[in-house]
């Protein structure tokens, strides 16, 4: 009962703070007569948002960007996890491949985007590739680290019970890697949104990043802000999905910190 009341009080506090910020923003823009093309008022952004949500072209752009985010994230996450397993389980592979991984990791993936667009064109493919490259590394690094976190004695317990290499992997090592893999997924999903938008900035014919460029070009700054809020909402929802899968699947680890964050 008291916990519910506390949750309600917290929500009220958040709403009040948000209302205060928006009011202050609205008042400041009107009071100082700031031009709409520099900083639009919250009310005009809301108007733009409503207009956006009512137009069918918006949903065409939304589907393109969401498709790029999810396809890129999926490819990058699966690829990163698989290579992470290979590198994490084989000392030889670790020794041979890890230097390349580090070298590629330190390279800013955003800087590769123009080349990818040249190679794969202005369609969705180039954006999917850029997003996949960005989502790849958090999964690779976290899988390698996670696989190494399995306690030696638990592995010995299985070995003594005549377990095969594969049984040791899927019964103990991969399970122990799961918390870290989910942390990687959480990082990767947020980076995937950035990847898709950056890709669209470099060259695209559709998508929310493309829409932002269009609005900016037409000095429709309220429209740009509206798309930004939608992108932020996409990021929050995707993060929330990953976080709830995390708590549900990795149920044996305490998740206090995660809950507080979400």
């Amino acid at each position, binding site marked *: 009962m008291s916990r519910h009341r506390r949750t309600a009080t917290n929500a009220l506090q958040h709403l009040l703070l948000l209302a205060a910020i928006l009011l202050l923003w609205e008042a400041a823009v009107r009071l100082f007569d700031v031009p709409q093309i520099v900083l639009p008022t919250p009310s005009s952004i809301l108007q733009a948002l409503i207009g956006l949500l009512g137009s069918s072209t918006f949903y065409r752009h939304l589907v393109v960007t969401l498709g790029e985010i999810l396809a890129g994230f999926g490819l990058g996450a699966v690829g990163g996890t698989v290579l992470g397993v290979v590198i994490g389980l084989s000392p030889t592979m670790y020794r041979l491949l890890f230097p390349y991984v580090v070298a590629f990791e330190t390279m800013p993936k955003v800087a590769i985007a123009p080349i990818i667009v040249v190679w794969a064109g202005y369609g969705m493919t180039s954006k999917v590739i850029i997003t996949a490259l960005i989502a790849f590394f958090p999964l690779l690094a976290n899988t390698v680290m996670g696989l190494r976190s399995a*306690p030696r*004695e*638990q592995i*010995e*317990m*299985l*070995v*003594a*019970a*005549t*377990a095969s290499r594969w*049984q040791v992997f899927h*019964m*103990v090592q991969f*399970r122990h890697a799961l918390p870290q893999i989910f942390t990687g997924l959480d990082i990767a999903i947020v980076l995937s949104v950035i990847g898709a938008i950056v890709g669209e900035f470099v060259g695209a014919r559709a998508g929310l990043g493309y829409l932002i460029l269009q609005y900016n070009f037409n000095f429709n700054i309220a429209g740009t802000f509206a798309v930004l809020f939608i992108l932020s909402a996409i990021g929050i929802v995707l993060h929330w999905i990953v976080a709830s899968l995390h708590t549900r699947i990795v*149920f*044996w*680890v305490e998740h206090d910190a995660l809950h507080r964050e979400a």
Partner: protein
Amino acid sequence: MRDALSQTAPGPDMLAISGLTKRYAGRGGEGVLALSDVDLSIARGQFISVVGPSGCGKSTLLKILSGILERSAGEIRLDGRPMSGPDPRVGLVFQAPQLLPWLTVTENILVPARVQKLDLRAARARAAELIEMVGLTPFATSYPRELSGGMQQRVGICRALIHDPELLLMDEPFGALDAMTRETMNNELQRIWASSGKTVMLITHSIPEAVYLADRVIVMTPRPGRIVDDIAVDLPRARTLEMHNTPEFGRHVARIRRHFNSEGTLDA
């Protein structure tokens, strides 16, 4: 002492170790001799304890017997057949129970059965029996974090018995428990051993625990790890805690302790 060793086993040997040697590769060329030419045989159904200070090789011996470590030389026969590597006829209990936190008590116990691809229906029935034997039936579907240390170690023992091994190896299984729980677990282990008829090798730091539980106590000393004494404990079964105070019990304990005094390793 050789004579004392050979005259013990009345029945056929369950475990026969001869010339077992383990040398760890070291930085400076010749490495460390952890086990030096160990000979040991254990009769079927016998309970033996191995005591010795840290570094005497008792854990190395157990790891080689469980197949986790490779030996440098020597021969091991289990029930007449040579052993190499992990063997389904062996059950292993660790110092920390090493339960998997994402599995329930029952599923943890079933791990060796799954690894060895045994019939799971039969294994489940057996798991339920073992859980009942250690008094954990109300916790069959609980997760390890919901259990006390003593309860977790009971689960560890059930897991070591699920595939009906012939030899049960125990590596200081009660070392992490408090004194009261430890005494309870000692009695429980005695009961489990008596009802299952398994051959047991118990590694322990505690001399009273070794004497209390065992038919024979093997004494090991370090540098290099070797067996220095093999004592038949002729106290009657079933043993009770009061026996700790009898002169016979004290005599056995004193004889074992003397070895460590002479080695200057009283800390054991």
